[in-house]
């Protein structure tokens, strides 16, 4: 059986299904970044101090942050002045750092022990995967990544600013957290501020 004809072509495999084929179709080589906006300059308001200002190899989609940008998750804090930041929780009893509110501390079960903790904008890359097959409407490839932040807290998001090529992504490398308005709106047209990681400047 030749390489072009996968023995599982009739499959469903992988947790993988029939539908994603559509989005995986591309005229580009798998290692060439696909990005609708790769000819655009990233435009951000000055308060996004950490956002890149150069052409990004794969800006997830960047618009001007408007006054009604919403945080993509509760992790993102958008202060009235100053830069956005990530805010997790730290248990004052056992020291565990978590990303979202719980009824009690996940580590020690302590109640009312979690206090807000501003997470660092720097860290190290712990793991990644380059996603080529995704659900309909999601641009591929992209790099899904996990990073340990300085001082505690682990986040997962897209790694940007690198080619989606395993040879060019170093596990353990220093990363920066950056904030960008994402290219996806809700049904009411609201825009969202996301957080991403990129190789440290």
């Amino acid at each position: 059986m030749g390489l072009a004809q996968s023995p599982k072509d009739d499959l469903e495999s992988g947790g993988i299904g029939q539908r994603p084929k559509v989005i995986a179709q591309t005229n580009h080589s798998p290692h060439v970044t696909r990005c609708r906006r790769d000819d655009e300059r990233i435009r951000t308001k000055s308060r996004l101090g950490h956002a890149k200002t150069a052409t990004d190899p794969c800006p997830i989609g960047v618009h001007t942050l408007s006054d009604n940008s919403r945080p993509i998750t509760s992790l993102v804090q958008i202060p009235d002045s100053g830069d956005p930041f990530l805010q997790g929780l730290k248990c004052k009893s056992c020291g565990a750092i978590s990303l979202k509110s719980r009824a009690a501390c996940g580590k020690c079960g302590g109640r009312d022990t979690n206090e807000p903790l501003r997470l660092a904008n720097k860290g190290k890359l712990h793991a990644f995967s380059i996603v080529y097959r995704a659900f309909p409407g999601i641009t591929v490839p992209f790099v899904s990544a996990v990073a340990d932040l300085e001082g505690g807290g682990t986040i997962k998001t897209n790694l940007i600013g690198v080619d989606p090529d395993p040879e060019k992504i170093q596990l353990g490398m220093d990363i920066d957290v950056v904030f960008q308005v994402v290219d996806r709106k809700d049904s009411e047209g609201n825009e969202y501020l996301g957080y991403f990681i990129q190789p440290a400047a």
Partner: protein
Amino acid sequence: MGSEDIYIAGIDMIKFGKFPDISIATLGAEAAHLALDDAGITINDVQALYSGNLMMASAMVGQQIQKEIGQTGIPVVNCANACATGATALREGWTAIKAGLYDIVLAVGVEKLAGAGMLGGGGGNKTGISPEGLLGSGAMPCVFAEAGMAHSKEYGTSFEQFAQIAVKNHHHSTMNPKARYQIETPLEEVMNAEMISYPNTKLMCSANVDGAAAAVLMSEKKVKELGLMGQAVKIRASVLTTDPWTDRDEVMPDINTCTRNAAAQAYEMAGVGPNDLDLVELHDCFATAEVLHYENLGLCADGEAGKLIDEKSTWLGGRIPVNLSGGLLSKGHPIGATGIANVYEVSTHLRGGAGKRQAEGARIGLAHVIGLGTCCGIHILEGPSN
């Protein structure tokens, strides 16, 4: 807890595949009948039924099966526990016999998963937008790829080593007539298959299939009474764990710690160690996952999984053969059935009936599943002494 041992007196599975015209109840009933026949009993002898199914967890699948095989009015418990669903159903039955409630129970695992598509990551925030593809991916191929890459970071595990897992498991499946696929996939074919989520290519992802498996569990007293000791497989350990708090667990489901905890408990309960095992069926939902579980289950020291792969120690004929059934990669992964089907595979070897893929002289084996969310089920089994 009762001290009496509990046995698998009968066990079987249907050939996994794609059965669009057959109902889930019929698939489950078919496996149930095979297991009852293997034990030489009827539904009238069964005192309770434990059913495992995930995707139709609200549909009373156990009762649907019961209506196919005989409505005797016995208790039916429907179990859902992600990919550990089948193991959970089996263990619930074990627990009930251990508690002294029953002497004979039936555990059935069934799933219709053919064509289900990529699982996980499809959801999103209750309000706002889905973060999938923005805040990384929650799709299973990616989640398990990242788990594998964390191992690479620590020990330098290579794409090729991960790919060798798929080569091995597809090879083993060529000797298993009940596997969904029986096709050799050489290394270059695995590595050049469609990349789904690096480093997992399509051939390194489990196959979504329809399937069912069932087991008859009996107390030692009943096994002896029915004269089934010559075929009964002793359950030396039955363990279920969840993921304890770990620092990265919120963004990176920890499949390692719950497996390590379950393995430690299971080895202690069984009074054996990893070196006593003659074969292992472990949860190779993705090729990357199998590598981690070599170390999690203590089949080798931490950091030596790559060496185990390079030396082919987990192939048929190797020091500790793993996934002789073809594993989830090629036998297929009908979620609710998986945790009983892997017990079937181990039991079949312990009974000396595995044909060309037989682990020679197998006496003790381990079956392992992981359900994301997260839980781990482990059974350690001992074959009949004759």
